[in-house]
């Protein structure tokens, strides 16, 4: 099988391979004139990280880790911090593209053309809550994006640490430009052990890409390392649990399936990707309080159930990132942690020197990991899927970063606990409606799909008459239901954007 050649000098590195666990500054900028927008691009363009740079940086991080040098977010083996360059990515909204004269180039992604709306995301339709106070999750009340806080560009600065200092010179240059204003500046910081604010390790699962690039030292190499995992049901894997997906599912112009020809979009779109940005606030206090209460209520009929158990089932993994399918398999490694199927037994694998434990028993009925557990809801793997597209082809390239201080569980009255915290959710995909909106609005927000049994209690949004209503899920093997009385994750900003290629950024920066 011929894999497509990916132009890693033209593709932004944030799209692929991404930058690992990082800190980030997100600048949402409004520009009053086309000249102002082009000026921003001109300042930023020399610093935009290419995929080649990102691949080399990834290789360097891996080598440093193996040599025992300290890398942020990973266990230290002593030694100096690695070289930590500033990485930059940039994306434009539809409004931004229109401003610089590309308003007639439409139809490549209709959701992007329309912009993020409640109809696509399932965000509430009612601006006010029942008590008359503004509903912060309604797009009109957002702090960035939505109809009242529109912006034209999202510039993302990324480092392993101390991003604010690292990006300041460049940020100051941008802010000094005429007719450029900051709609929102958010700072994200990777949490210890790559956890998110509810305390669960995040970012474990993601697709790999078919495709190759030309490496100066090694010649033609795959963009996703193959570890010798056998194919299953027509799916190849990079690491165990990392299905390989055709790059056209993320990158415009590349083939989206085996044997498919590259598509024929114009140079503006080729080698770019569509970006979903959602500023998600997490109510940690409510999550813990509510799940303890839910466990207490459930324990009356399901003896012994605890708050941690309820939380683990809601997520689908333990806080350490172990899948509920793999509990009991012992300590996990990078290769083992994502090695599981739901609907079929998972075989043991010998990958090089490592024997990766399998999972003997399948979970067709959702008794071990409920269908509604977050990780199973958005990625049912080999399990039931009501949509016409294969599950692997619906996956996203996630690049989110937590923001806000860690919640102090030991001192619930700590001043920092009143601060906002959450996730700056970022994902790249080729088709926003078919991929992102399928996972969020269709699967997370509905009870019956992809396989029934409950809403996504963690992140889903259910509406009744346009306002939030409770979410429910059937506790496995019983007739009891968990009822989540409120949302623990709420959107407070967002937009659909397009991250152009390096060549397209140059095109956009030039006056027409």
């Amino acid at each position, binding site marked *: 099988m011929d894999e497509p050649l990916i132009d890693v000098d033209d593709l932004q590195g944030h799209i692929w391979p991404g930058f690992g666990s990082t800190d980030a500054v997100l600048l949402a900028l409004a520009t009053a004139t086309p000249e102002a927008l082009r000026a921003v691009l001109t300042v930023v363009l020399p610093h935009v990280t290419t995929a080649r740079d990102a691949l080399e940086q990834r290789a360097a991080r891996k080598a440093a880790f193996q040599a025992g040098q300290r890398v942020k977010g990973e266990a230290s083996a002593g030694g100096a911090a690695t070289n930590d360059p500033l990485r930059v990515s940039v994306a434009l909204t539809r409004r931004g593209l229109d401003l610089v004269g590309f308003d007639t180039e439409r139809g490549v992604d209709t*959701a992007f053309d329309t912009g993020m709306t409640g*109809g696509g995301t399932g965000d509430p339709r009612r601006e006010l809550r029942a008590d008359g106070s503004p509903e912060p999750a309604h797009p009109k009340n957002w702090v960035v994006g939505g109809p009242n806080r529109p912006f034209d560009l999202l510039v993302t600065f990324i480092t392993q640490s101390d991003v604010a200092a690292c990006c300041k010179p460049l940020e100051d240059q941008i802010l000094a430009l005429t007719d450029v204003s900051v709609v929102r500046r958010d700072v994200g910081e990777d949490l210890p052990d790559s956890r998110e604010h509810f305390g669960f390790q995040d970012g474990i699962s993601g697709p790999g890409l078919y495709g190759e690039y030309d490496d100066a030292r090694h010649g033609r190499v795959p963009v996703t390392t193959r570890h010798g995992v056998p194919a299953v049901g*027509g799916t190849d894997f990079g690491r165990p649990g990392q299905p390989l997906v055709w790059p056209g599912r993320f990158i415009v112009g590349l083939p989206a399936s085996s044997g498919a020809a590259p598509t024929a979009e114009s140079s503006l779109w080729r080698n770019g990707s569509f970006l979903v940005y959602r500023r998600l606030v997490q109510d940690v206090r409510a999550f813990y309080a509510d799940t303890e209460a839910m466990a207490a209520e459930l324990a009356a009929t399901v003896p012994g159930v605890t708050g941690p158990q309820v939380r683990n089932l809601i997520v689908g993994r333990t806080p350490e990132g172990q899948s509920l399918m793999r509990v009991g398999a012992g300590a996990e490694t990078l290769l083992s942690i994502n090695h599981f199927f739901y609907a079929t037994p998972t075989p043991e694998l010998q990958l090089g020197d490592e024997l990766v434990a399998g999972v003997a028993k399948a979970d067709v009925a959702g008794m071990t990991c409920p269908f509604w557990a977050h990780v199973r809801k958005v990625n049912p793997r080999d399990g039931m899927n009501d949509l016409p597209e294969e599950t692997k*082809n619906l996956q996203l390239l996630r690049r989110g970063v937590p923001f806000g201080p860690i919640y102090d569980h030991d001192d619930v009255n700590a001043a920092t606990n009143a601060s906002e915290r959450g996730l700056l959710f970022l994902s790249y995909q080729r088709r926003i409606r078919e991929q992102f909106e399928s996972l969020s609005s269709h699967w997370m927000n*509905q009870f*019956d799909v992809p396989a029934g049994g409950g809403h996504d209690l963690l992140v889903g949004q259910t509406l009744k008459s346009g306002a939030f209503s409770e979410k429910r899920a059937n506790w496995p093997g019983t007739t009891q239901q968990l009822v989540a009385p409120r949302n623990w994750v709420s959107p407070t900003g967002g937009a659909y954007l397009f991250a152009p290629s390096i060549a397209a950024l140059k095109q956009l920066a030039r006056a027409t």
Partner: protein
Amino acid sequence: MAFRYATPAGQNDLAGRPNEQAYLDGWSNLIGRQVRGQVQTLQNTLGQAPLFFSELDVAIPAAVAATPVPWVGFPRPLMLRFNGDRAQALAEAEVRDTQVLGFREPALATPVRAAFRQQDEYLEWVPLKRNGEVVGFAFTAEGPEYWEHLASFDQDAVRALYESFTGRAVTWSELSFAHDVWVDDGGNPVRIYRAGDYNPLNSVNVEECAAHLTHPANTLGAEIDLAAKATLQREDAAGNALSERRRLACCSNFGDPNRNSDPGIGLAVNLTVRGGVSLTLADPVGLYILSFDEGRIADKDGNPLDDWWKLTRGVSGRGLRAEFRPPAGSALSIADVRVGNDEPLVTGGQLAELTTMVLYAKALPLGVAEPPARRCVRRCCVKKGSAPESSMLSHERRDDPCPQGSVNAFPELTQLPITPFSRRTMGAGVSRHGGNNGSDQEE
């Protein structure tokens, strides 16, 4: 009381009428014959008891819950036909196809053609019009078998239902055949309809009100056939179990691999019975409208639209018919509706995309020995140069050649990979199974 198959969703259109019991008994017999017939066919194929059973023969404890198998209601074959062009697929879903039902006379000379809707995920719809303006959409998941059964007991009940759907007087002549319909049954002409019999493809159904399903593949019989056959485990030429829905559908002799429904239903059944779990379709047997995603629709200003979607036949979780229209007293019209990302509502297909369909199965261990896996009896072919996962597949017998210009979509199903060793010692294309494991007798 002995088990009886209930009518779909327990709908009783002859409640209180003298022939009510005969109509209910007749329906139970109709479904029972089909389910038992499938059980017998599997028994003959396997030479042992199959994992598919009838609730007429095996009592299911009340504690066994029904397992839902959902799928999206918009037809995937149309998306495939137009290479993923959604706009074209939505438009084509409104265009009628035709089929030859039979012939007017025993000489089989004059074909009887009938139009049907190209909506083959067991959900069909029509726009509801008043004075030429679209005022709503009607959706149906009811099989034609039920309506033919009802008509055989009470034509007036059928006519009255049509009147309730259309809001106008409907005559029996609009709903019935004006002449006999004959078909060729192995060289012998057989009359399948008499003049005056209910015509399931009458134009009032097809064009005006969507009383029930019309697509040739949208039948309860197809559902029962699919569920039964999907209880057979399949393996590819190398002896690997099949756990990917399209490969399983291509390998098997059930359904259409291009649809959304059939492969998903097939895989769900197949996975459920592994290890020797017995399965049947939950009573009442039917294909149902499960839910509609109201969160994805709004008016032009983004306000929610409450109560526009209503089940008008069936019950929650087992919807038979639904209508989407402004509630009484609303100042809004269909033209004011926005779907998803502010898309004007133009066709029912946009609503079908937000509609989840379902069938229900019940499974429990009954101590039946799990039959051994069988090799593929069919395979799929795809146009040369096209990607199998995103292109229309043709479903062929295993040993038949692919149509001209197409190639084997999933070679591993029926061919061992060719290696120098296999080529030297066994010859290309030799199946691992060597002798006949019975699969050849399935068709």
